[in-house]
């Protein structure tokens, strides 16, 4: 059995989770996911400002605090915090570090700000086989962070489909941290989720696992909390990944005194193509929210729309009137509707001009004019797209420093 924990479900998750997982009990490997679709865009913009950046900076802070502790306890660290610059991050860590590279396909998609193939588990396994104490990757599938260490530990073959599928399910349950242990959970009133603990998968040689968490941590692990996380961000029951296709309609869950047993998961060969996460700059956006209180809400909305359109033109404006108001309301807030307006434009000057145009209306528009937050100077926005490339166009590599 290998005991793999998770200490991060996104870039910005609980900073102390790394220490909590290391001090809370035994682990073999501690993983962390830092990369959402949106994060790649954020890191892409970091990298534009400074080519040395492009990785998840919070992970570095966690390592300053915890790397010594992890090394002392013999816990290996496997994270995708490398983002767009795994080598840059790897070189900042004082340990035997391996990194995974080859996901960056910007040369193939020059129009994109970021273009990264979703790599799999085998380069992570390679790094661990070569003795890495810490493995940092760029864009790998979230589940690979768990599949890689399990595959290395048990010496699985690349066509051990059921085992790889079982570990993929474990990885999917862990990848969002406390979403597996009662965080963000529909039936939260039935449990104590004040501070849910981070999840752990105890994976067996056959790929089955026990989802659990350290004793004394908050939240809970039940078939319900695990089901909730299994349903997160999935599509068809054939869950496609770079290493295996996992059949979510074969998963069996059973309540166990220490958590939830997951078994019987079936796997089959993965597709011939790899998914690519593409972020392009879509233009500039800006937005504000007008508060419309009391009588004549529709007419108030019409007036301010006409005025803003006259000032900056109609193109690229999206209006949403949220009728949150009640008639004859006992509080001012309950008497108010919200009119959201967003501008999306290729012209940064127009995005900035939007603010001025909106604020200039302050004494010249509907009675009771105010906004919930003043508009800013406008910010660039990204457009996300998935693309697919043949496997032979991607050369993933494990590098040991």
């Amino acid at each position: 059995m290998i005991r793999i924990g998770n200490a991060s479900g996104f870039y910005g998750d609980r900073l102390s989770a790394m220490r909590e997982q290391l001090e809370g009990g035994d682990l073999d490997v501690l993983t962390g996911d830092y990369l959402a679709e949106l994060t790649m865009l954020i890191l892409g913009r970091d990298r534009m400002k400074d080519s040395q950046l492009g990785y998840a900076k919070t992970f570095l802070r966690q390592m300053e605090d915890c790397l010594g502790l992890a090394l002392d306890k013999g816990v290996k660290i496997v994270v995708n915090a490398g983002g767009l610059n795994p080598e840059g991050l790897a070189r900042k860590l004082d340990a035997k570090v391996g990194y995974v590279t080859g996901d960056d396909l910007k040369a193939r998609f020059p129009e994109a700000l970021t273009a990264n193939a979703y790599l799999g588990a085998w380069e992570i396994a390679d790094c661990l086989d070569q003795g890495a104490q810490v493995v940092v990757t760029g864009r790998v599938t979230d589940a690979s962070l768990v599949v890689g260490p399990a595959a290395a530990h048990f010496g699985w073959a690349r066509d051990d489909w059921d085992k790889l599928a079982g570990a993929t399910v474990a990885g999917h349950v862990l990848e969002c941290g406390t979403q597996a242990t009662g965080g963000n959970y529909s039936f939260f009133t039935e449990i104590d989720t004040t501070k849910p603990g981070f999840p752990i998968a105890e994976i067996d040689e056959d790929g089955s696992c026990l989802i659990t968490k350290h004793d004394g941590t908050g939240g809970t692990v039940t078939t319900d909390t695990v089901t909730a996380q299994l349903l997160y961000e999935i599509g068809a029951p054939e869950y496609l990944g770079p290493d295996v296709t996992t059949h979510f309609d074969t998963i069996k869950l059973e309540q166990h005194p220490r958590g939830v047993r997951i078994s019987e998961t079936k796997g089959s060969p993965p597709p011939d193509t790899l998914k690519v996460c593409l972020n392009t700059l879509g233009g500039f956006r800006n937005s504000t929210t007008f508060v419309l209180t009391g009588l004549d809400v529709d007419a108030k909305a019409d007036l301010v729309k006409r005025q803003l359109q006259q000032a900056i033109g109609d193109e690229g404006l999206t209006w949403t009137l949220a009728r949150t108001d009640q008639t004859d309301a006992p509080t001012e807030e309950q008497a108010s509707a919200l009119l959201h307006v967003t501008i999306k434009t290729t012209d940064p000057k127009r995005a900035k001009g939007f603010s001025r145009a909106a604020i200039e209306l302050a004494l010249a528009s509907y009675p009771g004019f105010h906004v919930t937050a003043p508009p800013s100077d406008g910010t660039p926005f990204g457009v996300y797209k998935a693309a697919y490339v043949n496997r032979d166009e991607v050369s993933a590599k494990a590098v040991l420093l």
Partner: protein
Amino acid sequence: MKRPLGTIAGARSGDKGGDANLGVWVRTEEAYEWLSTFLTKEKLKELLPEAQEVTRYDLPNLKALNFVLHGLLGEGVASSTRFDPQAKALGEWLRSREVEIPEELL
């Protein structure tokens, strides 16, 4: 009896590019039998009128249905002008909709 769907069903939702996914699950076999008949994709669109093109996938082993709401989020979270651009609360919205639930399931 007319009750919020969330009285007996849990849900979790999220984003994949411009699509949203919405998983719904129940806790007994009887409830799943009812849910899988009741919550067709047409019914889902009726309960969530903002949904356009919907695909439903069945996961009887998890007593769950997974819906993909195509195009709900436009070109993804960074670009979307939709309220809740990552569809985080879509499931809780669905759970609050009142539907006719057989009394023996309550």
